[in-house]
């Protein structure tokens, strides 16, 4: 079967993109920050999929991670604190042809933007959402975040924080219409890349939590996990992601997990020791809000005109007596 002509012609002018085509500026994150790992993984994804930079929109809120769009040579919208998701939803609704990514931090997503987070899961719009979870507020210089471990001494909790940490995975898995949940840790770049790639290919709202270390304010939190490979649980499944031989050699704590099993996914999600990585849940059958609302449907001028005239007809008082005949036209 031959290829339609316009596709051949498109390929004639198709250029292969390099990593540099997606890079913009020098990231201003602290050295050792996991955001760099996510940035590298996302740029690799773009290059590997040869995505056209003008078709990408990275939306973020406020926080360290939300600087992300500035370092992508694509379209980007660095918005306001907590509102990355509704902005991204608006973008996707207006432009289903764009690939929409959202970069949000634990404060941005789980605290000030928590309402939007829950509803974004429910809308299930086709976008890739990366939660850069470093368990602390960095940009505002060390305050507790909803995902901070209990007892964290921060500038607002000098005697230790009072509450148990929120688990973004179990929250997400508890919301109606959840369709993709995955987790990675910033110190295993292979998994970060694989998980973001799977998220990108998922049709629907794909939520990826990256567990990150904040080298400035919370550098020690994940030390034990870093030093003991047994404390990391690789989730593997034909429908999940695969791991390189090298990685399997280090991380022997692996478990088969079928991403269609939401109950098991919730159990796995609630564990932090070992910390599970890989795809926890995936359900391609959940309809996307933009599809339900028929976003991007062509709107011929005649259709708008006919619609408006029909509505005006309903409210019109015609000057003549033969009005019904007129309004029937």
């Amino acid at each position, binding site marked *: 079967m031959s290829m339609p002509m316009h596709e051949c012609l498109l390929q004639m002018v198709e250029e292969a993109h390099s990593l540099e085509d997606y890079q*913009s*500026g020098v990231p201003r994150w602290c050295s050792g920050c996991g955001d760099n790992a996510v940035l590298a993984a996302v740029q690799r994804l773009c290059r590997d999929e040869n995505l056209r*930079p*003008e*078709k990408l*929109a*990275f*939306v973020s809120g406020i926080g360290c991670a939300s600087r992300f*769009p*500035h370092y*992508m*040579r*694509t*379209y*980007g*919208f*660095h*918005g*306001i604190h907590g*509102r990355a*998701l*509704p*902005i*991204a*939803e*608006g*973008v996707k*609704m*207006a*432009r289903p*042809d*764009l690939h929409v990514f959202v970069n949000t931090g634990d404060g941005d997503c789980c605290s000030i933007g928590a*309402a*939007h987070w*829950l*509803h974004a899961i429910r809308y299930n719009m086709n976008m890739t959402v990366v939660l850069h979870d470093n368990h602390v507020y960095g940009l505002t210089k060390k305050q507790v975040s909803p995902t901070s471990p209990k007892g964290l001494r921060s500038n607002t909790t000098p005697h230790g924080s009072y509450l148990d940490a929120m688990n973004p995975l179990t929250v997400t898995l508890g919301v109606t219409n959840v369709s993709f949940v995955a987790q990675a840790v910033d110190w295993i770049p292979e998994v970060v890349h694989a998980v973001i790639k799977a998220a990108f290919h998922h049709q629907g709202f794909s939520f990826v939590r990256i567990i990150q270390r904040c080298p400035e304010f919370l550098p020690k939190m994940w030390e034990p996990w870093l030093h003991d490979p047994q404390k990391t649980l690789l989730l593997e499944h034909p429908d999940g992601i695969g791991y390189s031989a090298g990685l399997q050699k280090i991380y022997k704590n692996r478990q088969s997990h079928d991403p269609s099993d939401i109950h098991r996914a919730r159990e796995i999600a609630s564990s932090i020791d070992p910390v599970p990585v890989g795809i926890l849940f995936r359900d391609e059958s959940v309809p996307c809000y933009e599809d339900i*609302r*028929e*976003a991007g449907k*062509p*709107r011929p*001028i005649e*259709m*708008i*005109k006919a*619609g*408006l*005239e*029909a*509505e*005006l007809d*309903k*409210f*019109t*008082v*015609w*000057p003549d007596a033969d*009005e*019904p005949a*007129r309004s029937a036209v």
Partner: protein
Amino acid sequence: MNETLTAVHGDDATLEPPVAPRPKAKPAVVTLDECVVEIISDSGEGAQRCGQSLGAIAARMGNGVWTVEIIPAEIQPPARSIAGASGNRIRLGANRIANGGDGVDLVVAFNEQVLLGRVRAGELKPGCTILLECMWRTHSDPRIAAAYRETYEDLVAQGYQVIEVPFEALCKPIVPDPRRGKNMFVLGVLCTVFSFDLKLAREQVRLTFRKKSDAVVRSNLALLEAGAAWADANLDFKYRIPAVRAKEPQIVVNGNTAIALGVLASGMEICAMYPITPATSASHYLSEVFERVGGIVHQAEDEIAACTFAIGASYAGKCAVTITSGPGYSLKQEAIGLAVMCEIPLVVVNVQRGGPSTGQPTKGEQGDALTAIYGSHGDAPKVVMAASTIEDCFYSVVTARKIAEAFNMVVVVLSDSNLATSQQPFPRPRFDEAWLAAPIDQSAVPFGTKPYDWNKDTGLIHRIVPGQPNGMHTITGLAHDRDGRVAYDPVINEEAIRARSLKLATLQKTLKPPPVFGDPDGDLLIVGWGSTRGAIEEAVTRARAEGLKVSSTHLHFLQPMQPGIKEIMARFRRVLCVEANWCDRPEDKLIDENNRRFSALAMMLRSRYLVDIDCWGEVKGQPIKPGTILDVIRARIA
């Protein structure tokens, strides 16, 4: 009067309600210039539908019409309560009518308690005629019967012409549930009273019930006929208001419907909103029709999400609208600032209600002008327009979309609860393709094109939207340079703020001076904005008829302000702003020129033009009456 009595709609057949006692001969038809009618009832008895239908029939007859909804603040207020009046005021006239008028000439009330509410609010003209449901007189609950009698006698004593009518009893042979059917009976009665063409009335009833079954349409038609026949046989008064049928087709809608139609006509395709009174009905109507033309009403999880969703859509190339009211508008402020900073076109409709805080959700006020102009932190220049008629509600949205996209600005359109629920016929808009937003530009931009290449004179930019090859950039709410990059450079920050501010001046240069209503000079100039226009102009007309040298001007743009206002004001001895927002009363003991808080427009005009402008305002939640303004004019000129 016992307000806690609850109604029991008993079917006690042994207690026959009295039949209207009036003896009669065929009454002479009295010709009137205008008449104000109210139909009031407990919520859910259909008085609003009756009133709207009457207004529509009058419009079909060619009369001037203005209808005002009387809405209780609660969804289901207790029956027979003074605060629970639900219904409609219809002002009918021989000429164009632009407000609800002063006092009521004729009232139809389904119980005496809701009527009392209107009497106490001073809405009734002295000696006006009242058609009062009289089944309460013989109610099985002695307290209800007593309350009715007491009120009846009180009203008669006050000089009102009270005619008792057993509406329910009259409807009972026609429909099984007369409580729900008597509104159409009353419509028939009023059609006879105003000598309306019953054929038009029948058509209106069919239109009103077009979504219902044939049986429903038939029984409502039967009620209409019965009411008309009953009035013909039993009432000894009958009016005719001369009418001139318009040459052009007119449409009869309320302000919120007009806004929704404006959204359709503007070519916008995304409306993101969160329910809030009194703005929601615009979104209700839009939801019903928008999908048919490929549009989407997105009910977001909150006001902030609604605004940021609209901003996201606008950013991506489809200028969007968010419709809200005061409390929602407050919540959107940060997001509006973002749109200003990023120069994303956005239309925000604020259907104002009484404030601050939750205030008076169902009542109108012009309290948000300053918030609209100065809201959001930092210097956030945006365009603020105000609709002054129902027709304006329609065209303001079309215009706002165009300005928003041409100038890459946030355009706030102010309406208020009075416009939202009032109906007035206006010429049917003739659709023009040019109203529609241009399609999203996806053509490649030349390499090196800057997203914020502010023009040094106008501050304008040519926006690049996602999808345009070579145009990739990141926009940010942070201070940024011409490339959109975060900038901490003091020079570029000032340059950017200057450019965003300049755009207002640029827009101002494209505006014309507002017209003056009345003579170009005189003793008193009234300046107003928004929904008060009809009342102000009527008051000016009446004052001028009394020989007073008064004129008025009405502002469509609050920000930037139209040019020439200073010159207009200079031709009058005194200038008075009339607004439905608060200004301190000079007669109050502690108020003097050092502490007096002026009404919003007065404050802005004083600060801009250094003219000693006086102001008068009223925040009763009711539309300001022309008669009230007339009194103010008389007092100011005296």
